């Protein structure tokens, strides 16, 4: 249990003014890193479940409808036998003309226009299906077949995002390290400032843990104070970034929506930093007191 009252004149030293601001800064930075990470996570998840799993196969039109049918049949046979292909669907002519409408206008009387046939293929993402080898296989049967793999550029994007996420984790890790360093430093300074009082406490029969508890309680208090201050500063910043993202119409980035769970994540930040500060202060005191006498 942490007692409110402190036997050491902690409120009178300058550290109390210095530590909360540093921690506020740490929490501010980590909130930004966390927000970036969550947004990218969402984006990747969307791309993954959306485009990533599909491949389109384009079959060039034949001389007549029968040839069309024959080519399509051959391609579909290959797809049916191909492991890793989950589902495939030939887009109907109507649907194709719908898609082409913006370019060729109303095609009411041009139904026999030779346009390629499109097959939407859903790929099992776990199967390592290679679009290029699929294209080769298909081209052997039906010349001119092409395979569009959205995954190629997407996978590059995903790789980029992954790198950014790793960086965000690294930033969080560095922030944690900086917090630990700061608390170690301030705690050591505190030990030096209160050395005389600590010696008296020792001579009176205080255990190291009793003294450490007082430093830990103070670090927790200052940590919470600074942590929530940092979060309070981060919220408008994040809101501003979100607003700008919407304004510029960055469609690749999903709307920064805060679910309850994610909001909890942000509330957890200052608590986590404060707990880290508390544990660091405690272990610093325990270690240094052993060295002291």
């Amino acid at each position, binding site marked *: 249990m942490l007692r409110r009252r402190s*036997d050491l004149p902690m409120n009178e030293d300058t550290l109390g003014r210095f530590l909360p601001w540093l921690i506020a800064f740490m929490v501010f930075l980590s909130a930004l890193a966390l927000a970036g990470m969550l947004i990218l996570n969402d984006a990747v998840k969307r791309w993954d479940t959306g485009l990533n799993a599909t491949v389109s196969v384009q079959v060039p039109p034949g001389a007549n409808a029968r040839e069309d049918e024959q080519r399509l049949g051959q391609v579909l046979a290959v797809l049916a036998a191909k492991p890793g292909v989950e589902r495939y669907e030939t887009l109907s002519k109507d649907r194709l003309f719908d898609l082409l409408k913006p370019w060729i206008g109303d095609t009411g009387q041009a139904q026999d226009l030779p346009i390629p046939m499109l097959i939407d293929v859903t790929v099992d993402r776990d199967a390592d299906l290679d679009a290029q080898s699929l294209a080769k296989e298909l081209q052997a049967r039906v010349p001119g077949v092409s395979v569009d793999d959205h995954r190629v550029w997407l996978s590059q994007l995903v790789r980029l995002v992954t790198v950014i996420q790793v960086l965000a984790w690294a930033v969080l890790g560095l922030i944690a390290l900086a917090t630990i360093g700061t608390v170690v430093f301030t705690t050591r300074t505190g030990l030096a400032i209160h050395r005389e009082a600590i010696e008296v406490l020792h001579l009176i*029969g*205080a255990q190291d843990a009793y003294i450490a508890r007082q430093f830990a309680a103070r670090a927790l208090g200052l940590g919470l104070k600074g942590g929530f201050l940092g979060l309070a500063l981060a919220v408008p910043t994040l809101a501003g970034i979100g607003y700008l993202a919407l304004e510029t119409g960055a469609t690749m980035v999903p709307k920064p929506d805060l679910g309850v769970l994610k909001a909890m994540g942000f509330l957890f930040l200052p608590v986590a930093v404060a707990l880290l500060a508390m544990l660091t202060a405690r272990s610093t005191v325990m270690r240094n007191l052993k060295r002291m006498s």
Partner: protein
Amino acid sequence: MPPKVRDSDPESIVRFENVGLRYGLGPEVLQDITFALGPSSFRFLLGESGAGKSSLLKLLYMALRPTRGQISLFGRNVASMSRSELPRLRRRVGVVFQEFRLLDHLSAFDNVALPMRVAGARESDVRRHVEELLSWVGLKDHLNSRPPTLSGGQQQRIAIARAVITRPKLLLADEPTGNVDDKMGLRLMHLFEELNKLGTTVIVATHNLGIVRQMAHPVMRLENGRLNTDEAEIISDLRLDEPGIGAGAASAGPGFTRIH
């Protein structure tokens, strides 16, 4: 010659055997200190400034470890004790430091409460005992005063209250009458005597021969780092058996003739 310390003396509260102390590479400030005190002993520790009184007390309250020899407190060899065992032992020792060493940011009440709180006492007990003791030493109206706002004599009484609040088995006082007049000094000594009657072993380091003369307790004397426990010699040396200034009861009393 110092009296031989009996080997089988489980009863002894304090026991020094050939203890020596030096700071760093300096000369020994204490040499061959050998003595033992049982429960309910009362000793005055005399000696010139720089004779080693404070060093001897520091060894007793475990702020220092001896460079040689062996110290046992409450039957336990201090040298063999781990760091985590020390607090428990220190709680049985009350110390009145020469410079008080009160915590200036705490009220008189909190200062006196400290040893109880450190030992994990219930807050209701703390309140009751501390208020009672502070009233007893005449500081009832200053429970919430901080030491710097009080006089030297008042601070001294806080320091003494803090030393005795847990009814220690060993009470050490370094010049406890240094900052007060003889009358107040005597009053504080009577407080020590009360505790002593309840079983506490008391060691008072002092320059104040007036008080030593008035109280019938054995004396020990540090002379250049060596402890002289030959009372007859000390008494004649310091003329303790002659009525001194401000001394009411000059008779040496039983304490002076009884050696341990």
